[in-house]
């Protein structure tokens, strides 16, 4: 039987692989991407690789400065806070809280937003408009205020603030999905699929989603940097993670009182937040850049 491919070694990149190639090109984006991956790995392995437990008090080493100053101690690389807890371990654990939870929040709101957006694009007329806009009322309330309201109703705790942030992030995904899907529906290959007898679900899955996934990812990275800042802000206000948990915003709030005597308790969590937001934004930039390069191609 004749072989189909005469040149066996030639490989044809799928569109996702092509996206990866054009994404990899600018070196800044690769640095940002590596930092992003580093943060994800840290978030997953935080429990295992911290040198000390993040909540253990070492009362003999209270308010120790970082190891590079004169009074520091090498066994506590980044110093300790006012209760003798190791800053390095707390920061690493905080990665899984602030950064890791932000990823979960974005994925949840992406999933819900895409479902509502697709339903809105499949229908027409009033039903479509209602689905598109009924969550817009959430856009009118700032996320912090919404979180306070939800905490007032449901009580304080980490899960409740997460619900608040998920709700705030959904409307943008609804709009973007609906516009992208409507744009795809105008194209001839979707009509060809429909004429072949494909059901709407099949059309969405094979013809539409592979082509809009880049837009969704670039919007998701934008949403993620907002989510990181929201989780940290809520932690700072004391509405998020309860006290012993080493969330970066809560650590900031804790260290503010002692800013003049122990500045490292403030600037270290702040730098961590800055680092994660920059990494996310670089990845988002790279994705949008790759998208634009593909469009021009």
């Amino acid at each position: 039987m004749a072989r189909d491919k005469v040149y066996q070694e030639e490989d044809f990149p799928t569109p996702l692989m092509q996206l990866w190639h054009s994404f990899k090109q600018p070196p800044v984006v690769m640095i940002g991407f590596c930092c992003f991956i580093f943060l994800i790995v840290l978030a997953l392995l935080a429990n295992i690789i911290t040198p000390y437990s993040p909540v253990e008090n070492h009362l003999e080493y209270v308010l120790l400065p970082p190891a590079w100053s004169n009074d520091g101690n090498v066994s506590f690389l980044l110093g300790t806070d006012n209760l003798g807890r190791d800053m390095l371990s707390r920061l690493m654990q905080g990665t899984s809280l602030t950064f890791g939870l932000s990823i979960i929040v974005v994925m949840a709101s992406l999933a819900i937003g895409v479902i509502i957006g697709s339903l809105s694009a499949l229908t027409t007329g009033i039903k479509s408009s209602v689905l598109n806009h009924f969550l817009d009322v959430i856009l009118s309330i700032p996320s912090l205020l919404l979180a306070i309201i939800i905490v007032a109703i449901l009580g304080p705790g980490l899960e409740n603030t997460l619900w608040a942030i998920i709700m705030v992030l959904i409307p943008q995904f609804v709009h973007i999905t609906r516009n992208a899907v409507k744009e795809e529906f105008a194209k001839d290959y979707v009509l060809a699929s429909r004429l072949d007898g494909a059901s709407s679900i099949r059309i969405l899955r094979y013809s539409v989603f592979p082509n809009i996934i880049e837009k969704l990812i670039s919007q998701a990275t934008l949403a993620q940097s907002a989510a990181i800042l929201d989780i940290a802000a809520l932690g700072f206000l004391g509405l998020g993670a309860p006290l012993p948990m080493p969330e970066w915003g809560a650590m900031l709030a804790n260290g503010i009182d002692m800013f003049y005597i122990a500045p490292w308790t403030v600037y270290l969590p702040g730098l961590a937040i800055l680092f994660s937001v920059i990494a996310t934004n670089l990845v988002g930039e790279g994705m949008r850049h790759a998208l634009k390069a593909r469009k021009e191609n």
Partner: protein
Amino acid sequence: MSDVLLKVINLSKSYQDKNYWFNRKSIIALEPLSFNIMAHKTLAIVGETGSGKSTLAKLLVGAELPTTGHIRLNGQTLAPGNFKQRCQHVRMIFQDSGTTLNPSLTIEQLLDEPLQLNTKLDETERHQLIRETLQKVGLLADHMSFYPHMFSGGQKQRISLARAIILQPQVIILDEALASLDPSLRSQMINLLLDLQQQMGLAFILISHNLGIVRHFSDEMMVLCKGKVLEYGKTTDILQKPKHKYTKKLIMSQRFQLLNH
């Protein structure tokens, strides 16, 4: 003399103007028309934009529901919303080859989809059928694993043609499919279409405004203007003795006087 393959009776389409809730106006896109097509024959539909030819194409292929009238193929009425039945008999090739092919699927997956949805062949049989169809349109079996962006415009139109013939239909509608091609590719495509018409006994409905191709390729011709049928009959008759002023203007503007008619 073969029997009538496709019979269209009193087909028309009008739209309701959605902007006014009271006193709705209806816009007539296509007035009631009827025609017949035999196998091995080509009908050309000529008209400018807004004349209703794309509406007619969409009605024939089933993408829109007609307001009145019905379509009969070999005596059997084609139900308006039933795509699965319709696609076995009437297929369409679109104009803009840039958006007719899904950029994230390989050619094999693209041609597999109509087979998966409409036939009961298993995987090896489908693979074999795809390979044979690609060879029929002049592409290699290698091309099965390529993506659409790797092909030129002429090749993309051939892939569209392969997608149309893979279900062995009886009628193919060419919605300005040849307009965007270069002249040499266009003549290659015309030769290919003529061969397929001979082999498979297809009937073509060619929508075009290039009267040279219409004269060469079609047996019968219909001239549309603003939804109305101005002329319908054999191509040679209409081009030699046009009755309507609009047809005369159309012929004049394409320099037919160069030929010794």
